């Protein structure tokens, strides 16, 4: 029997020493799914040294051998202690897929480098013309000797400006129906012919990029799965993107922050923490958070018993992201005009000057803006509902 309370204490003790004030600050100032890159990398290295960087991985590949509850406790403690988020495209998304579909050589080459942070991965799925309709993607890979020659462009590639590797869906057969002619390729970003254009987000910061491929030669051994079987590989990976995440933990953190913001927000002669109107709205969101938590636990139970989250991961993604957005709105309701300044320097962990706004309000507007993307990325809320309608309801 695992003593979970003792495990929690072990995690807490580790965080107390490993999570420096600078790293914590970077965690606090995180306004999207990504923390400031250098802090994220520094934190990854610390977790790697400790052997805790890939909680979900089997021990043979470097996982710590925790059960589901331990992993949940670990994530929760990290989040609530304001640890930066580790860039997830490698360890969380690509890694599990490689263990399943990769060759022995691919596993040995890529998995350790993913863990150490030597390889930073980004995801080349969407294209300007292929968003929700991912299967219509056009970036092509044509065989030429021992290489594929890749031409085309990928967009919304988060962190491509910091990454050195990209995994891509490419078209290898144009003559068959769209899903049947797609392959999955691993590409080094420093290969000649690749250029990266950063995209400035609505908050004024760069997180996304567009990646261009002009006659880029990629060794055939970088193919994952069979040629033209990329669609099943991609679907496998997307379910990890959707289902591998514990929304409840994010929601709990957001709620905790709102409680504090409400206490610090004047309202007439008191504060918003005792304003029944606001508290009523907040309680309604809390009730949904409780329901989400229980739904996540049910799904975890099913997975533990050997099932596949399948379409239920769509349910959790819809509820988790939309509830997160509702909580962003409640925060906005509290900070009022303090949402106005757009000053990226205030969000830098190194900044030490005047904050312009109350400390609790620094990230609120950027979070409100950035979190609109949560119902767009990883399959839009509309796509998730279509999946539910088709797969669960059989419509």
């Amino acid at each position, binding site marked *: 029997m695992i003593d979970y309370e003792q495990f929690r204490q072990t995690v807490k003790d580790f965080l107390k020493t490993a999570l420096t004030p600078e790293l914590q600050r970077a965690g606090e100032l995180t306004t999207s799914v990504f923390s400031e890159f250098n802090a994220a990398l520094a934190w990854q290295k610390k977790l790697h040294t400790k052997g805790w960087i890939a909680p979900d991985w089997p021990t043979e590949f470097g996982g710590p051998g925790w059960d589901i509850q331990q992993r949940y406790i670990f994530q929760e403690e990290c989040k609530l202690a304001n640890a930066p988020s580790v860039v997830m495209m490698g360890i969380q998304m690509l890694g599990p897929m490689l263990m399943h579909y990769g060759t022995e050589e691919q596993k040995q080459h890529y998995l350790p480098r993913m863990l150490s942070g030597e390889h930073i991965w980004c995801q080349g799925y969407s294209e300007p013309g292929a968003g929700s309709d991912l299967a219509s993607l056009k970036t092509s890979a044509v065989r030429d000797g021992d290489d594929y020659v890749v031409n085309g462009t990928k967009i919304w590639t988060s962190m491509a400006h910091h990454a050195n590797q990209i995994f891509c869906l490419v078209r290898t057969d144009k003559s068959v129906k769209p899903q049947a002619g797609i392959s999955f390729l691993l590409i080094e970003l420093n290969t000649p012919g690749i250029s990266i254009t950063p995209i400035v987000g609505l908050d004024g910061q760069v997180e996304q990029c567009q990646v261009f491929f002009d006659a880029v030669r990629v060794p055939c051994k970088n193919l994952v799965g069979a040629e033209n079987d990329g669609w099943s590989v991609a679907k496998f990976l997307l379910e990890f993107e959707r289902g591998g995440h514990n929304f409840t933990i994010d929601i709990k953190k957001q709620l905790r922050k709102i409680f504090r913001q409400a206490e610090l927000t004047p309202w007439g002669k008191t504060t918003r923490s005792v304003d029944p109107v606001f508290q009523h709205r907040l309680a309604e969101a809390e009730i949904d958070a409780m329901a989400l938590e229980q739904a996540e636990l049910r799904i975890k139970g099913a997975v533990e018993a050997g099932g596949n989250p399948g379409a239920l991961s769509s349910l959790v993604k819809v509820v988790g992201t939309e509830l997160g957005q509702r909580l962003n709105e409640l925060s906005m309701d509290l900070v009022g005009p303090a*949402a*106005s300044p757009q000053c990226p320097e205030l969000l830098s962990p190194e900044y030490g000057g005047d904050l*312009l706004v109350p400390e609790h309000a620094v990230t609120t507007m950027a979070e409100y803006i950035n979190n609109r993307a949560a119902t767009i990325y990883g399959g839009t809320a509309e796509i998730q509902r279509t999946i539910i309608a088709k797969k669960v309801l059989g419509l």
Partner: protein
Amino acid sequence: MTDEHKMLQNSAERYLRENYDFAARQHSIDRGNAIDAEHWRAFSDMGWTAMTIPEAADGFGFGLADIAPVIELFGYYLVREPLLESALLAGELIAAASEAHQTRYLPGIIDGSVIATVAQQDATPLTRQGKASGQRLQGDLQFVPSGGIASHVLAPLRHDNQPHWVMLDLSLEGISRERYQSHDGRQGAHITIDLPFDDRCVLVSGIQAEVATQALYQRAMLIGAAEGVGIMQGALDLTVEYTRQREQFGQALASFQALQHRMADMLIQTELARSLVLAACHAWDNQADNASTLALAAKAKVDAAARTVTQEAIQMHGGIATTNEYKVGHYFKRMALLESWPQHRDALIAQLIQNRQASITP
């Protein structure tokens, strides 16, 4: 609406359509311009700054209902120069002051040399400190909209248990500003005031100031609400246009009924809000008994409806809408800030409830 108003609306529409290009607006912001001087000049050349200034002070004396469609255009084209704050809002309070004050400030408001802004509704009033001979005017004004570019600010003063409104030249020694770029492309500021008190800055006092405060912020609600309606219309138009041309799964997004219904809802909300705002402007212009309630209701309605409409616009666009380069997200950002101007919706609704209870108490 008379021909005169229609003409104004048409010329404003034409000017903004032809000259207020979104890409140019963004370029100007990126270069650090708090406003575009050329537009600012054009606005006064075309008489927009004089729209609601009384005829006695060389304005056109239009009511808010007359020009609500013009205010909507400011939202629709995402105009960031603070004309609404300066001419329509501050101008109105100055017009309620003595003739000397009017003569001193209104010509500048009309010719654009004065850019006036107004403190937030919940700003802590300034104070007069010290002995009668050498009194100082002191205080902090937080998050003053367009406070970074304004030449003057209208601020409340509390002294001897009496309310007053003062108009301060921001270039005076003793006034300092902490400027910041704001998410709606404007330049806001925290303004710190500590200077010898000069009673010539006092525009109105006592009962007159009390009435002016009420009027000022109700007017701010109406102007903000009308701008919000323009924002909703802009977000809706872009969404319809984009979903018509964007194809996924071999068909235009606009052909999916699930999205058509949501766009229909956006239109319903926009028209509901527009109806209420127009009615509230009429009531205001006619000093109707329910003018205050309608102003509160109109702004509260726009705040809630425009939040949903601008969010839906982003969602139906998808990734493109999360970029700074694309217009639709800027409607969302402007609205997010307009929601707490001059006060948050919850405060407006609380006031509305109070009004109702006061009206039914015998």
